[in-house]
């Protein structure tokens, strides 16, 4: 990941890129589709693409958005060919791509887009889009090719978030309630779905990008809990996430190739910020804990060579990452002496101080537990399943929470976690800091990109100073694919179909 992509600067000024793809050549159209790609990423919980966004990996293959997050993390035109943003940053005018067909053969119009936006605004609670949708002033489709979205106030992350506003034909079964058979525009159709088992999506012959997709169908394995690396090695899967702990064994297999996602997963320890219990409300104690942290060892443990240590929510090299801030990290390496000194200074005797740690059941949480134990605290560890942890975090009767969080379509989706009214903030200690909120709000309202970056960094500096959440490091998720798969590469987010890559580009060559 190199320097700040220029597009980021440009996109808000007015232009979306022009149509990226040349008209279909007769040659590529002629290439026959062969084989079924067997893949495994995240699950699929609902057939309704608007319901909530937990199934982004799977549903992107049959529905598409106006925009798409490209490999470099920038937002690109997709179902929209271009857009214009008014100078005050409130009015977005999208030009809708021509020749895009729904799976039922009907052509996409601006009115379809508007209907989808209205449905999400009025019917869907929760999800990433709920916050921007609350800020919508009006949704209009003045003509068949134009969609206009007017906001009550400027909202910087909108274009990125629109990459997850899936466009579904309003005639889809269940539109009024819950969509059961979505009719999208994606390269694959919504085929046979067996919850928890598999999802079969056959290729869409009239897909608007000529020559795509290159396989007859994709089949997602939706079983969770199974060790995918074994299935990959055995040839039962073509592409799948494997986890860092299987990296070595997968790499040793000549039939498999490992690539990394473009955005990162990040690891952090949060303190209880909503209702901190003494002595963890003392900044010196928080500091002591942070000095005890062996970030390099931790990152080596969770991600091996793939991990990098830093102190920010943006990964090193990304636009919103700051090198000076990174270099000033006091906790880049552990300092046990300082840790103990700080505790003494705060008058804390850890031996008679209970410390309740809430976490998931991943192995890395045990490092946190052992660290606190080493510091001398009486540790009580509640290792829970997803929902159990969620519930427990919401009670705010704990002291420390080691967690991780995955790739997101926009940096705002990371910052929002520390805001007073943010979604699902338990993992980050339920921070309530008016000044932090103000800085982030200013950042998303800022039309100028550098100003936005400055405000985000200021907000983050405040979070670091107060030790709300201590970032340990980042690592991209490894995705393994078998050698017979060509053309596929993992993207910035989990979405498996995007403007410049994904399953539509994947092809199968004969084995051996």
């Amino acid at each position, binding site marked *: 990941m190199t320097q700040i992509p220029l597009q980021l600067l440009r996109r808000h000024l007015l232009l979306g890129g022009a149509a990226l793809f040349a008209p279909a050549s007769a040659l590529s159209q002629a290439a026959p589709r062969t084989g079924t790609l067997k893949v495994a990423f995240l699950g699929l919980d609902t057939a309704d693409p608007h319901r909530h966004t937990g199934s982004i990996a799977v549903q992107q293959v049959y529905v598409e958005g106006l925009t798409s997050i490209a490999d470099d993390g920038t937002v690109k035109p997709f179902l929209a060919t271009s857009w214009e943003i008014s100078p005050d940053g409130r009015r977005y005018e999208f030009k809708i791509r021509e020749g895009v067909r729904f799976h039922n053969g009907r052509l996409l119009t601006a009115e379809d887009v508007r209907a989808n936006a209205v449905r999400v605004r009025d019917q869907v609670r*929760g*999800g990433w889009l709920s916050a921007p949708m609350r800020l919508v002033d009006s949704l209009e489709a003045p003509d068949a090719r134009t969609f206009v979205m007017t906001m009550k106030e400027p909202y910087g992350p909108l274009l990125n978030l629109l990459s997850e506003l899936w466009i579904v034909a309003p005639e889809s079964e269940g539109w009024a309630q819950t969509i059961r058979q979505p009719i999208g525009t994606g390269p694959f159709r919504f085929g046979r779905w067996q919850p928890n088992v598999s999802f079969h999506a056959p290729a869409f012959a009239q897909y608007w990008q000529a020559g795509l997709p290159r396989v007859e169908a994709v089949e997602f394995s939706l079983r969770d809990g199974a060790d995918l690396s074994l299935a990959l090695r055995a040839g039962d899967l073509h592409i799948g996430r494997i986890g860092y702990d299987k990296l070595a064994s997968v790499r040793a297999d000549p039939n498999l190739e490992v690539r990394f996602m473009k955005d990162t997963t990040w690891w952090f320890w949060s303190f209880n910020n909503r209702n901190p219990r003494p002595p963890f409300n003392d900044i010196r104690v928080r500091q002591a804990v942070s000095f005890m942290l062996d970030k390099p060892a931790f990152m080596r443990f969770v991600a091996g060579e793939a991990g990098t240590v830093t102190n920010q929510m943006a990964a090193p090299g990304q636009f919103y990452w700051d090198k000076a801030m990174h270099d000033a990290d006091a906790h880049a390496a552990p300092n046990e002496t300082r840790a103990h000194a700080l505790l003494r200074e705060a008058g804390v005797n850890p031996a008679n101080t209970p410390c309740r740690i809430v976490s998931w059941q991943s192995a890395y949480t045990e490092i946190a537990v052992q660290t606190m134990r080493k510091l001398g605290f009486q540790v009580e560890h509640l290792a829970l399943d*997803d929902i159990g942890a969620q519930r427990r975090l919401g009670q705010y009767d704990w002291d420390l929470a080691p967690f991780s969080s995955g790739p997101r379509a926009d940096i705002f989706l990371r910052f929002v976690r520390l805001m007073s009214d943010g979604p*699902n903030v338990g993992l980050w200690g339920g921070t309530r800091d008016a000044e932090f909120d103000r800085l982030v709000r200013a950042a998303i309202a800022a039309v100028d990109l550098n100003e936005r970056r400055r405000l985000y960094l200021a907000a983050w500096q405040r979070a670091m100073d107060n030790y709300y959440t201590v970032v340990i490091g980042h690592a991209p998720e490894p995705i393994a694919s078998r050698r017979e798969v060509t053309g596929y590469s993992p993207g910035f987010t989990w979405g498996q179909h995007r403007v410049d890559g994904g399953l539509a580009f994947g092809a199968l060559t004969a084995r051996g």
Partner: protein
Amino acid sequence: MSIALQAGLGFLRQAMLLAGIAIAVFLLIRIVPGDVVDSMALEGSLDDEAIAALRAELGLDAGTLTQFRIWVSRALVGDFGNSLRFDRPASELILAALPTTLGLAALALAAGLALGIVMAAAAALWPGSALPSLVEILNLWSIALPTFCVGLAAILVFSVWLGWLPVIGQWLSPVLILAVDIAGQVAKPLHEDLKEAATASHIRTARAKGLSPARIVLRHLLPNALTTVVALGGLILAGLIGGALTMEVLFGLPGLGTLAYQAISGRDYPVIQAVVLVFAVGVVMVNWATDAIQRSLDPRLRR
């Protein structure tokens, strides 16, 4: 009293049992902290207002009693409600998962019983051979080796190292593992039963008639030991319905066990209730059938 009346009374008792289980399950689920809205909030962004609205929409904010009344009135007509996670009727999910579990249980039980009975009978026929020891070993195997340990080993050996079997979705390993486990549970008690039955007076009578050993084992010993097999089979099948859970999860088979496991960790109330009820119906039916079969096998119990 006629068989039909007896069976009817037995059935009534089981129905009462099921009603009790339904209530218990409903209450039990309510103890579990967290609900599906928590689970949705986890994946997306839900603020407190949205969470409250969602709970109201799903009827989760109503009183327990009200929820129960609604649930019962619908469950009686086969409507267990929609899965909260999948937006699909729970009954549909169960119907989709049922064949896998039934198939797994039936195959494992058939293979296991066959192996167990043959081993026990053979060991009774040739007590001097290695067979009785083999029965003992098989029994210790099934007691000492948890199926999930064997399952892990099987995946590693047969699917990864040898590459003979697929890792997910294959049936051979789980069926074999369960079958051997069942055989071990059946063979020993049956063998002991046969040995003990061999001391019964009517076996002495059979010998006094000059019957051949094979005829005595097949015609006199096994039929009388069959009630043991049926009783054991009933117990095992009831246990197997639960034991299949481990195998299903381990081998990624889309059965009821997997469904139950995921529903429990996902707080998918309607599915949990439905699955547990289906399990309970299964166990109750098995017990009832076991009883009925035993009755029909032993002429002394027919009346």
